[in-house]
């Protein structure tokens, strides 16, 4: 099943590894920041509402 990459195994695997890692990091950072900012906004909005 695994394709035989021959002498180019390093180049191909490293390319996939680097790219996927970068994409995963970017997505994870985006989601984490989205969650944090959303929670913060909800907290502030609640406080504003309570104080009128």
């Amino acid at each position, binding site marked *: 099943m695994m394709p035989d990459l021959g002498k180019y195994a390093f*180049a191909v695997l490293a*390319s*996939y590894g680097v*790219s996927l890692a*970068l*994409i995963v990091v970017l997505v994870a950072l985006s989601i984490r920041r989205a969650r944090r*900012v959303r929670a913060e906004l909800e907290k*502030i*909005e609640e406080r504003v509402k309570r104080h009128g």
Partner: protein
Amino acid sequence: MSIWEYANPVKFIRTTDRLLPGVSMAAVLCLVTGLVWGYFFTPDDYRQGATVKIIYLHVPAALMAINAWIMMLVTSLIWIIRRHHVSALAARAAAPVGATFTVIALATGALWGQPMWGTWWAWDPRLTSFLILFLFYLGYMALWSAIENDDTAADLTSILCLVGSVFALLSRYAVLFWNQGLHQGASLSMDKEENVADVFWYPLLVCIAGFVLLFVALVFLRTQTEIRARRSRALLAREGRT
């Protein structure tokens, strides 16, 4: 109904909230399909061997790195002309995504160039232009994060984006002139369809679609985040005043 309705932040968030799951799912689906197809089920190129599999990451990333800048240019123009906050924030949200794609294109290019050209890096026009594009992304993001006032930051970065686009184009031609024909650069270009056999072309198309969808999903999510962060700041500022 006009497209400008989406310039309303609330409406934008509501619409993208509805779209986001679908777009993300489609992005994951396309990326997984395209990459698995490309990695496991395509033959090696007779000339380049297994390295041809890098194309499924390299070309879509490079394509989207440029398209992200073009999108930032368009949204910056919309901000300058029509002053919709969502537009400026979308440009801000797209910049790190574009920069990441640029890094992917450069890294995979280096890894590909090493076995094919015998060198990680050559001052080939294409490679050099991408490096310069990356520098432009860095400057743009640095300027955004350096300015505190949101509107000022949006204005200044928009103008930087416009001026930067002109200079990026100039650099592109300058670089072509500077190192023209010294390197085989274009022979590896897969831009022209006839360079790629169908076996490589179809999975590549799926991967490109995956990168486009990934970009759209990330920009939606990050723009929402920017809108919320901005609203938080506005609320806090109002609180501080009363």
